[in-house]
């Protein structure tokens, strides 16, 4: 079965942002523009994370979700600040297909079981932010890797899967935003322990990193941010009137078609057809000039 490549969009208010280690958040553009480009160039799914939601305790992406899902006909997973079944309902009603939960599940694991009963296993993704410990194990964190939970990440993944979560979204706190690659040992450890799909997230700086996460990490899907976003930023910048963006030294950006072609050529089956256009197309008229 083809592996899934999932662009991850961190969203703050109306903006797509990217957390850079030691720098903070950088604004990259408008999420809808990026989402449409990714859909058009062959993304398998999209992942939207509301990065300020944990601050305010709520997810405020419903407008962006509605706009995206009316034009982008691939599955959309949304996370960030989802604390109650009503929060989940609101996001699904707006057009999301799956939700990612972390803090609410850590605080009350029964929440996972309730959400699964209410919305179905394939709708509920457990998001785990894992940080490597001195003894070689990994502990789970919340709030973008800031708050320790004391939970062993592997055991927590097993519990969540037992409670019915349909997928594990596994982010390496150590690697996220670095461009140094995935924590392949972490990914493989979780992928081998649970019977549900595992999405590796955090750290991809080159196409080879994505391949490693799949071949050596045994991930079922990979969520990437900088690797694709910096290519999209350059592509959007080729529209007259757009400012030239800053790059990020440790990232070798790639377009979605190029990434999938590379993966297909290196032993990773993808949903990709060689005759696909390169994705180097004009931005949709609706987004031009914004």
């Amino acid at each position: 079965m083809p592996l899934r490549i999932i662009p991850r969009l961190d969203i703050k208010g109306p903006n797509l942002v990217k957390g850079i280690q030691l720098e903070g958040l950088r604004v990259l553009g408008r999420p809808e523009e990026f989402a449409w480009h990714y859909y058009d160039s062959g993304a398998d799914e999209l992942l939207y994370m509301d990065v300020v939601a944990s601050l305010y305790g709520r997810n405020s992406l419903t407008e962006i979700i509605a706009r995206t899902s009316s034009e982008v006909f691939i599955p959309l997973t949304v996370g960030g600040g989802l604390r109650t079944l009503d929060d989940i309902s609101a996001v699904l009603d707006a057009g999301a297909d799956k939700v990612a939960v972390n803090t609410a599940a850590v605080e009350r694991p029964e929440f996972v079981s309730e959400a699964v009963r209410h919305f179905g296993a394939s709708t509920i993704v457990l998001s785990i932010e894992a940080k490597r410990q001195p003894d070689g194990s990994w502990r789970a964190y919340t709030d973008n890797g800031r708050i320790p939970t004391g939970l062993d990440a592997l055991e927590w993944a097993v519990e969540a899967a037992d409670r019915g979560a349909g997928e594990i979204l596994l982010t390496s706190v150590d690697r996220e935003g670095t461009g140094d690659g995935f924590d392949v040992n972490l990914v493989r450890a979780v992928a081998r322990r649970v019977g549900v799909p595992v999405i590796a997230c955090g750290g991809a700086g080159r196409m080879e990193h994505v391949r490693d996460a799949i071949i050596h990490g045994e991930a079922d899907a990979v969520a990437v941010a900088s690797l694709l976003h910096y290519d999209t930023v350059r592509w959007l910048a080729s529209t007259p009137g757009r400012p030239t963006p800053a790059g990020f030294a440790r990232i070798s950006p790639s377009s979605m078609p190029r990434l999938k072609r590379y993966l297909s050529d290196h032993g990773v089956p993808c949903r990709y057809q060689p005759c696909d256009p390169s994705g180097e197309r004009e931005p949709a008229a609706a987004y031009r000039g914004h």
Partner: protein
Amino acid sequence: MTLPVNENPRPRIAVIDYGVGNLASVRQACAAAGAESFVTRCREELDGAAGVVLPGVGAFGSAMDCLRAADLVGLLRDLALAGRPILAICLGMQILMERGAEGGDQEGLDLIRGDVVRFDNTSAGGDGPSFKVPHMGWNEVSTSGWYGRLARPEPGSDARIMMYFAHSFYTRPRDREDVASTTDYGGVRFCSVLKRGNILGCQFHPERSGPAGLALFRAWARGLDRQGGKGVSPVLNGQDARTTRNRDREAGVIC
């Protein structure tokens, strides 16, 4: 010479709301396919619909409980048996069957003979399960059968058709003619499109399967235009499905 009046207004599609499923996505796909849609659970409103979409995400038992609570079981069976075109998606397709296997036997809508079973990845080796459940992601839908003819009106194209799946259970239609396409996963070749007369079922989510999925919606909606709300009854030779099942049970065919 007068030009003909446009006799093909956009077909009106009713999307059944019984508390489960992503209605927004289905409505968006209908719109992209050039059809009007509305959400309902009301018999009178359904009368005016050229076609009916039965979505569904979640558990077989809960879905049937919701349908019973909303008094929709009889209504859906009436619509189906009267020949109304129905597009059933994911769990919606599974509840068409006689019964599901989740948490003990549960009765489905009993419109298609067969049952529903779970992908089994529990016999783990040392390296963990060989495949993951739910079946989540893009997978190939066969085009050698009825679905292929729907999806590819021009012969000669051999591009694979990929659709997005998100399910832990799959249907096992008893009659092979009901299987319009298959997909391989977990060592099983399961039914990914089910077709019996006016009933079309997709195990995948056509509303989230990109251009290929939208093409399915368009083809189905175009068919509604032509059928004008009528279609072939799905039952065997006009007999009631339940009568047939009882007869088969007496004959020992159904275990």
